[in-house]
């Protein structure tokens, strides 16, 4: 039994059903948001001095686009954040745009939902559509998609670790917020100097400096390698045009795979260096001050949809999604309080609801009957499920007690869930199973990754499931995720060579657009984790299309039950560890907490200076947005 809040139970054959005798199984009892109480409570409260609180806003988090704002309250006596609201600032509107269109348009249009990793949206859209059309790609088509997505992760992860999160731990930043750590770093040898080449921690932190640091610059360069890998498989990147229902339309040749393999080889050394780098950075900060374990910490509740299909298992059907989902290189799964509860995609799908109590939307369930009471297999789904959802924007002013974000609040079994690159490693590690292969092994409490020799010798990386989900472990996990991804890339390219040698070179299948009613879902993952596109089509047109991205989960506002979203949870309780006076606090630990999620909005360090918000039109990543 994996549900404890939704009244879903399973019969002896494992079929889900709603428990009998419940009039309204998906009733929502709205609770007041759990706000921080600004005055002391209890005995002696009247004589106690009120806490020294400071409202602290990171608004806009991006300098001009204003896609994300985070409003916090710092308790300067306790030196920690005691309140947080995460506010997505822009309406995306893809769901509205896609209504009434040919479903194939969704591949290209939804690609633009993310300015960082458009390939994942094209891919998941193609998955949803091929499920609706009842077609399945040939095995090599599945592998080409896998390889393209491996490449895309090597575009995404270096950007985050090198250019977005990395500078938070660089000499140039730390010298301002914690100069004593720079002094300590100068006399602390780097444990993995033999891998990354930096003798002291100060040398390593110098390498993270913006624009000049070696790791910063190398990371920028490696995004080129990731992009080339994508182009070898997709013909074009960003925003590939070759992802189609039933495979890819790229003209693939022997040289496509050879060139891809060459680029993948270049990646191996970078993966080794980044794992060593983030091991050293995380360990240095945690040893210097164990309080860093609390920065960005929240309960280990993770939701993942899994990615990278087994070409012999994947059949594109919803009916068999638990079987092919279970064969993915990175497993889908639900982790609650650190325990893996399920890896079944149907369990994940039927437990997801989206709420708009604190979002700039109208509740579509009011006065309407849900389109669907169950998924195509008869598993019950909520009126708040994506297949029943309607996007009804209702712009209005910000009010933290009422509505304050363009992001909605997805929940699984009505619980606050986080997703991430590290999440798919977490599910795969805890499941304790990986296909027989020479590069990757799930050990039940971690992952063993073997990276072949390139410039550096062959190396074994061992990622252990952390005891705490916090900012440093998210970054460490993401660094190891590169090795994880490279190992999967090796397996997929070798398998692709096998099909190629055997003459099984087809990468797509013909199809016709069905005219009857179809319901489908694409399950995939973005660089940041969970990704679904839910499709309802009829008469050859889209009736409803719903996109649920990683940052929809992570940046979500409070839900109707009063629970904060993951960013909000991670900020509350984050200690202010800066060694400077109150008036010089930069909020770096809060920013580290937010950035560790790799928010889809570029999470820059611009604090509210009181000079106001510059607004302009942008075309960008709107992953958190509707």
């Amino acid at each position, binding site marked *: 039994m994996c549900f404890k809040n939704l009244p879903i139970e399973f019969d002896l054959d494992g079929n889900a059903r709603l428990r009998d005798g419940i009039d309204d199984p998906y009733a929502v009892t709205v609770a007041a948001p759990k706000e921080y109480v600004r005055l002391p409570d209890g005995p002696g409260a009247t004589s106690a001095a009120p806490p020294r609180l400071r409202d602290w806003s990171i608004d806009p988090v*991006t*300098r*001009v*686009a204003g896609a994300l704002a985070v409003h916090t309250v710092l308790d300067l006596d306790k030196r920690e954040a005691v309140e947080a609201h995460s506010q997505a600032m822009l309406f995306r*509107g893809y769901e509205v745009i896609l209504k009434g269109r040919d479903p194939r348009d969704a591949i290209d249009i939804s690609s*633009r939902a*993310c*300015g*960082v990793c458009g390939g994942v949206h094209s891919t998941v859209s193609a998955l949803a559509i091929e499920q609706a059309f009842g077609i399945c790609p040939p095995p090599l088509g599945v592998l080409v998609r896998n390889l393209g997505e491996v490449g895309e992760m090597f575009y995404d992860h270096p*950007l985050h670790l090198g*250019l*977005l999160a990395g500078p938070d731990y660089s000499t140039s930043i730390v010298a301002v917020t914690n100069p004593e750590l720079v002094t300590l770093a100068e006399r602390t040898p780097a444990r993995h100097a033999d891998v990354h080449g930096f003798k002291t921690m100060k040398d390593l932190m110098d390498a993270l400096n*913006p*624009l*000049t640091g070696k790791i910063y610059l190398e990371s*920028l360069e490696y*995004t*080129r390698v990731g*992009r080339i890998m994508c182009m070898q498989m997709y013909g074009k990147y*960003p*925003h590939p045009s070759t992802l189609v229902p039933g495979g890819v339309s790229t003209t693939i040749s022997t040289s496509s795979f050879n060139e891809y393999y060459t680029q993948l080889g270049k990646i191996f050394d970078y993966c080794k260096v980044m794992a060593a780098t983030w091991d050293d950075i995380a360990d240095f900060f945690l040893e210097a001050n164990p309080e860093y374990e609390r920065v960005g910490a929240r309960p280990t509740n993770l939701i993942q949809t899994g990615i990278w299909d087994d070409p012999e298992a994947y059949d594109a059907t919803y009916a068999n999604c638990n079987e092919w989902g279970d064969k993915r290189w990175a497993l889908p799964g639900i982790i609650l309080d650190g325990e893996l509860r399920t890896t079944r995609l149907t369990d994940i799908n039927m437990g997801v609801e989206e709420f708009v109590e604190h979002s700039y939307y109208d509740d579509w369930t009011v006065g309407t009957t849900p389109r669907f009471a169950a998924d195509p297999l008869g598993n019950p789904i909520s009126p708040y499920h994506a297949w029943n959802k309607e996007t009804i924007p209702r712009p209005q002013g910000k009010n933290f007690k009422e509505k304050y974000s363009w992001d909605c609040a997805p929940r699984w079994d009505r619980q606050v869930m986080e997703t991430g690159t590290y999440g798919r490693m977490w599910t795969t590690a805890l499941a304790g199973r990986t296909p027989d292969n020479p590069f990757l092994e799930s050990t039940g409490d971690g992952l063993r990754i073997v990276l072949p020799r390139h410039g550096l010798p062959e190396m074994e990386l061992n990622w252990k499931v952390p005891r705490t989900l916090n900012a440093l472990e998210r970054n460490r996990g993401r660094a190891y995720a590169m090795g994880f991804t490279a190992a999967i890339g090796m397996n997929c390219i070798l398998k692709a060579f096998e099909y190629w040698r055997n003459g099984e070179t087809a990468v797509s299948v013909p199809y016709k657009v069905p005219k009857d009613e179809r319901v489908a879902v694409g399950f995939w993952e973005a660089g940041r984790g969970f990704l679904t596109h839910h499709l309802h089509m009829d008469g050859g047109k889209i009736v409803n299309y719903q996109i649920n991205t990683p940052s929809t989960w992570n940046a979500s506002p409070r839900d109707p039950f009063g629970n904060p979203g993951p960013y909000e949870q991670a900020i509350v309780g984050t200690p202010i560890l800066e060694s400077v006076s109150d008036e010089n606090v930069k909020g770096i630990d809060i920013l580290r907490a937010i950035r560790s999620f790799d928010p*889809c*909005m*570029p*999470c*820059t360090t*611009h604090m509210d200076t009181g000079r106001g918000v510059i607004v*302009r*039109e*942008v*075309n*960008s*990543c709107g992953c958190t947005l509707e």
Partner: protein
Amino acid sequence: MTGPVLVGGVGLPWLRDLDFGTQFIVRVESESWPDDVILEDLSYAAHRVLHRLQEIVPRKVVLVGAMPRDVDPPGTIRCYTLDLTPPPPEEVHERLTEAVGGIIDLDHTLAVVRHWHALPEDTTVIEVEPADRSFGLGFSEPVEAAVEEVLRLVRQKVGAIEPRT
């Protein structure tokens, strides 16, 4: 210098006049151009444009896009030879940080590629002042009226022969 001539459009898809750069390239790429002229949609993040420029090493670049400067009437064309002096590193870092998050912006592109000296001395920027910045397809009247003049300027810059009328 033996590299090609690059004509690049920078636009914001589906935002009417703001998509000028992209749509301009789409409209004119099938016309007759000298063999060494590459027409490309460069409507992607600045560092990706940097990588592209480093790959093709053009001897001449013409960048086209709509930029709301709000100082000229809609449809105004601003054509200038780019000063290749890069902005201060702090500004480059800020712009690059936004760009890697996916923001498409001509100014971000100009800042980042100049920092890494990826543009040739012969670089021209042709900006059009937009009128309609809303969601949708097609240009506003003043911007539509500017298309032919922009095309003439681009042809002039790349040394292309005017098509016969």
